């Protein structure tokens, strides 16, 4: 039965190549434009650490006084102060936990002929590597003692080692950064999750990568500063001040019980700070965000991208309306054929199924055109200067989505025309012939 309907549909489409072409083109353009923008949204919303992200959490505390002057800058409470980050770190309530901040340093290569350049890296604490799953090629992370002693050590990424020394075997070498000398104790594979979920809001989440990692205490005692937001309401330039926020903090919690425990701990900590007079806001402002939840509240998808995605969907809607109108014209025109089939014993349901299969076939063809259009659209997105642009590529799930969406959309578009065709009264049509 299906094969027969499919054959009928194919013959019918071949009979009206122009009308069929118009419908396939309309579906194709609509699917293509929508899939282009949905793919962009898909890569921006992607899970940066599949398999790991469900266990990573971002504590949020609000030490900001009730009255203050923040201008239009970011909310200072999105980062943590040094005392709060250290309290969470030393409580060791999670399996792993790390405080961190981005930093930009001028690197002076020892080799002649290589000019000084600036590199972005991270000052953090030792659990960073184990928690986020960075792979060491050589050496290891610094020790807890080195964390405490502000040791002048550095872990570098493979490409950074290559750039500086021409080889990745650099453990034991000395690098001059920001006017200080650091001993290389480890080399990790290049690592840049997309989006970079753990960075400050000012960083390029889709283009940046960390070239080096060094102990947070080292960064603070050498006053290397941060390249992210540093907001304060008193004692602005002191990184250890309880009134300056600049640190990010992540914790790994492996069981629901551990998550519940941590929530309670965080609440109690905020309550104790409020009781001590340091926090002015209630302890209920303290929160624990999951990784994807944190990216959600950070609004990392820019407004113009979501606007374009919305417009593309409206555009798809217009294309579908178009297809409904054209299908209506096409199916109602075949009143003679329908009447003969009905008179020979076909039921309404059979007619409806036959036409729906024809709609689905149009959808399949439209989906193929749509994929070509989407590839073209994504190519044009990749030409944009935005940091996410280079990621705009179609993956297999999106490809399958495009085809399935196209078929479903055209079957839905065909419901009304097919129903109208199926409910024609055969006698009237046959008589008029």
């Amino acid at each position, binding site marked *: 039965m299906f094969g027969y309907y499919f054959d009928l549909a194919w013959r019918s489409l071949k009979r009206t190549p122009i009308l069929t072409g118009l419908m396939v083109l309309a579906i194709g353009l609509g699917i293509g434009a929508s899939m282009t923008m949905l793919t962009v949204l898909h890569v921006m919303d992607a899970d940066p650490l599949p398999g790991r992200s469900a266990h990573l959490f971002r504590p949020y505390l609000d030490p900001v006084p009730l009255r203050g002057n923040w201008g239009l800058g970011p909310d200072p409470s999105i980062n943590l102060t040094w005392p709060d980050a250290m309290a969470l770190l030393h409580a060791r309530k999670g399996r792993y936990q790390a405080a961190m901040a981005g930093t930009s340093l001028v690197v002076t290569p020892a080799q002649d002929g290589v000019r000084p350049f600036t590199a972005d890296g991270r000052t953090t604490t030792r659990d960073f590597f184990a928690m986020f799953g960075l792979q060491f090629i050589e050496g290891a992370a610094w020790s807890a003692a080195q964390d405490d002693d502000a040791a002048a050590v550095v872990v570098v990424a493979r490409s950074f080692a290559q750039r500086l020394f021409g080889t990745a075997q650099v453990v034991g070498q000395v690098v001059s950064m920001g006017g200080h000398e650091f001993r290389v104790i480890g080399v990790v594979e290049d690592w840049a999750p997309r989006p970079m979920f753990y960075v400050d809001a000012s960083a390029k989440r889709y283009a940046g990568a960390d070239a080096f990692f060094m102990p947070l205490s080292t960064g603070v005692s050498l006053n290397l500063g941060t390249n992210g937001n540093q907001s304060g309401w008193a004692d602005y330039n002191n990184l250890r001040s309880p009134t300056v926020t600049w640190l990010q903090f992540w914790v790994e919690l492996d069981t629901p019980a551990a998550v519940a425990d941590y929530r309670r701990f965080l609440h109690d900590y905020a309550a104790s700070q409020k009781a001590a007079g340091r926090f002015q806001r209630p302890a209920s402002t303290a929160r624990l965000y999951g990784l994807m939840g944190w990216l959600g509240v950070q609004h990392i998808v820019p407004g113009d991208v979501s606007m374009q995605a919305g417009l*593309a969907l409206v555009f798809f809607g217009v294309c579908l309306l178009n297809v409904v109108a*054209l299908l209506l014209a096409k199916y109602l025109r075949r009143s003679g054929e329908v009447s003969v089939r009905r008179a020979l014993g076909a039921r309404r349901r059979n007619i409806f199924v036959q036409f729906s299969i024809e709609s689905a076939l149009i959808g399949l063809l439209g989906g193929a055109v749509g994929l070509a259009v989407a590839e073209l659209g994504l190519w044009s997105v990749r030409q944009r200067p935005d940091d996410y642009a280079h990621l705009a590529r179609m993956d297999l799930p999106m490809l399958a989505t495009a085809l399935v969406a196209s078929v479903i959309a055209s079957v839905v578009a065909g419901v*009304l025309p097919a129903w109208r065709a199926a409910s024609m009264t055969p006698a009237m049509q046959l008589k008029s012939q």
Partner: protein
Amino acid sequence: MRIHLQVRPILAALRSHRTAVALLVLEIALTMAVLGNLVFIVYGTIQRSHVPTGVVESDIGLIQSIGVIGESNPGTVAGNLATLRSAPGVADSAYGGLPLWWSNRKSLFLDPSLQHPAAQAYEFQGSQHLSTTLGMHVVRGRNFSDGDLPDVMDVFMKKTTAPLPALLTQALAQRLYPGGGALGRILYDGRYAFRVIGIVDHLRGEITGRADDDEALLVEYRVGAQDMGGGYLVRSRPGQLPQALKAAAAALQKANPGHVENKVLTMAELRENYFRSDLAAGRMLVAIMLILLVVTALGVSGLASFWVQQRRRQIGMRRALGATRRDILLYFQAENFLIVSGGVLLGVAFAYGLNLFLMHRFELAHLPVHYLVAGAIALWLLGQLAVLGPALRAAAVPPVVATRSV
């Protein structure tokens, strides 16, 4: 036969195609809603990319230079500025902030208790000569003189308590002191106090399209023997910027081999970078818009073809009864005009609805009515063009068709 006589038979005929007509009207309405808002957004972006910042953009270049601590750096800021100024083609130079590149946005207060912010303004800070390098145009009061500049270290370390002399833009002065008399007044940003010594015409920190882009404040301090990295600004003699900037960057690198010159950009390049993303998005929107128009035209044309084919016998009959080819052509054109008009009427409502949503979500401005008028005219023309082919085919139907069966 005149068109208005045809309207009633057309409406009667359309009534028997209610579903198809409704679909077409809906499609045209949605097209109109998207079209009006997209043109508005894209045109706004293009307009915005031409708003001047208030500095002499054609003659200003930026050298972003970062000092390497510990390197043998003979350079000082004052020395660097002198080096830049002696490069061929350079008229002036300064260290500091530049529109579209770097300025702080701060709340400003009229009284030191810092209770109620009076404005949000872009704060430009820099060395002596910043205002002349930028080419500020003082309209009231006076520009900085060497005598009143505080020392940079006193400013950074907050050793000085005297208000820093500052220039305001007219827009900011108007916002802070609507009654006038800004000169000589003291204001605060929570960290420093400022004394207004002059008013400049324009200085925009960013070009976002908001009215307060032009609310800015400019402060100079005196630099000397410090070694500071950051933005070195160069103003060339008129029309000599490319050569002058290149010469200045080379001179600075020679005097300061330990500095890393991350960026050497003209103001024109800075502006291009600033708007590149918006303009790329604009091109994408234009593409979506054009495809949308094509799809709508194809839909109109496809349905009209179907109707013409369906009514071949009626057309033949009308022709046999004395209607001219022109009458048949006009009939289909009038029919199309009626359908598009229905779509346009509904489209006005849709366009305003979409506009309200965009205003709410993306801070878009209110859609001016002439965009809708232009959209309506565009759709009427598009409809007439789309129907022309099928209508001509209809007009070519010979009267003899009426006498044939099927």
